[in-house]
């Protein structure tokens, strides 16, 4: 793709911010990203704002203009984006395309979500959808995959739990993660059963939060040393063919393969991954789709420490969704913030050594046993 670089990032700590509004959190993330990029509001040519739930929870919509007005950004094109869990990473995809198309030189992406409200319940893929009406809640879809993966490949409950244990260990070094205390395999397995075999600590918690990044064309990059190159930005949708193989999303494999092709690299070139560990089983399936290990080998891969900091390819050095929490509209942007931080060498105690290539992966929505959306973005310095 035409050169696009990330020149600024900002993130608000994820957690329960009962006293903060969605607009306030989004504006703070935007402010931090602008300051990090050394930009004034007039230096931004276009903006994308992602949010997943405000229309349902608060009756609010077209929020991006409100958020951006708070940081002096107006008049320019502002687009509001909803694409389930990939809302933020889809907004980023659109921003990159806008730069590549020559429609803008500098674009800001802001993702924000406020979802810690009473009686939130469980996320589903849409109230009126067939599966939702038949009891499909998000953890059930993943539990059904875990059951098959355990059956077909011998993946164990302990291996599933190890994803949560590893990500909590990583989160200890991440000041914006919601949960930073270590947990043991036993604690994960003994936490309340949500949907068999997934216990509470294997399901990402909800959170309020916001994140922002600024992308720019090469001519608009001032600080080359801290700029991080976008090597691929890929968005794809499910095929929804029947029957689906529950141990792999074709969408996931196709998205990862396309991104590697666009970036001209392979799995062995990746220094670190931020992936959509909405549930422990998700991360195991994504190892396989990303080609970090073979199909069915995800359980032993985490057990042997290959995805830990210090391992072959650290996955979710931020602590992932399992530790950070999952403010739906902010997550896809927060993953990119982490990858950029790692590639800049600014990640402190959770820094991946010699980080050269980073990958941000996200998936969202469920339809006909398939995923509605998958994004795979590759970055390098």
């Amino acid at each position: 793709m035409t050169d696009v670089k990330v020149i600024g990032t900002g993130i608000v700590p994820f957690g329960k911010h009962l006293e903060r509004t969605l607009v306030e959190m989004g504006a703070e993330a935007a402010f931090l990203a602008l300051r990090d990029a050394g930009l004034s509001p007039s230096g931004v040519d276009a903006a994308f704002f992602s949010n997943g739930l405000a229309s349902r929870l608060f009756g609010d919509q077209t929020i991006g203009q409100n958020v951006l007005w708070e940081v002096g950004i107006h008049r320019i094109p502002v687009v509001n984006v909803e694409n389930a869990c990939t809302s933020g990473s889809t907004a980023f995809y659109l921003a990159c395309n806008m730069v590549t198309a020559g429609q803008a030189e500098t674009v800001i992406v802001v993702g924000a979500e406020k979802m810690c409200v009473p009686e939130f319940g469980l996320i589903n893929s849409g109230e009126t959808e067939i599966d939702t009406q038949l009891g499909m809640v998000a953890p059930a879809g993943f539990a059904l995959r875990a059951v098959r993966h355990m059956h077909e490949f011998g993946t164990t409950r302990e291996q599933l739990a190890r994803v949560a244990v590893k990500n909590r260990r990583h989160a200890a070094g991440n000041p914006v993660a919601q949960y930073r205390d270590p947990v043991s395999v036993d604690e994960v397995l003994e936490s309340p059963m949500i949907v068999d075999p997934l216990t509470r600590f294997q399901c990402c918690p909800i959170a309020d939060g916001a994140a922002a990044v600024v992308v720019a064309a090469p001519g608009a990059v001032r600080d080359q040393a801290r700029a991080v190159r976008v090597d691929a930005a890929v968005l794809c949708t499910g095929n929804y063919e029947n029957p689906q193989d529950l141990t792999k999303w074709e969408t996931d494999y196709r998205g990862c393969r396309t991104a590697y092709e666009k970036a001209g690299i392979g799995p062995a070139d990746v220094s670190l991954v931020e992936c959509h560990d909405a549930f422990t089983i998700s991360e195991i399936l994504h190892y396989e789709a990303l080609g970090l290990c073979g199909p069915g080998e995800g359980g032993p891969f985490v057990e042997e420490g290959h995805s830990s900091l210090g391992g072959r390819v650290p996955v979710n050095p931020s602590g992932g969704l399992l530790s950070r929490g999952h403010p739906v509209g902010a997550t896809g942007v927060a993953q990119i913030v982490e990858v950029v931080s790692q590639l800049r060498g600014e990640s402190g105690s959770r820094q991946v050594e010699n980080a050269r290539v980073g990958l941000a992966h996200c998936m969202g929505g469920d339809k006909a046993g398939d995923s509605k959306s998958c994004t795979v973005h590759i970055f390098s310095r």
Partner: protein
Amino acid sequence: MNEQSKSTTIQPVNPGTFTVPGDADIPPEVLGGYCRACRKLYYPRPRYCPFCLDAVERREVGGRGTVHSFTVVRTKPPLGLPQPYCVGYVDLDASGLRVFGLLDPDRVEDVELGTRVRLTVRRMGHDGRGEARLRPCFTPDERAEGEES
């Protein structure tokens, strides 16, 4: 509970996605779609065939099958479903289609991968606003292999 509910006042969820047994006591089936031109079966039914864009007609795609995967949802249930409730994917004999659905919450201990199941339609939960609804629900099929109903 009377699983073959004859109630005319209780409406089904997802109208047009399963047959509701009438007085003839014909076993319920999942309703998918069929494209005459492509001779292809679909579930769920798209409005138009993804290959030729012909209209896709409703077609029974089966009421008996095998459990491909299942799980028990133990958290607070949505839509007034029982706590806990059971869901899974069932591979339908008649079409080979893999469909997501509810499994009998009273028979959880009798379900494992490969369990033979048949579709029932029963009063279960509500529409999200408290109004009772009929839902399709697979239950273990005690009938011997190959035996006709």
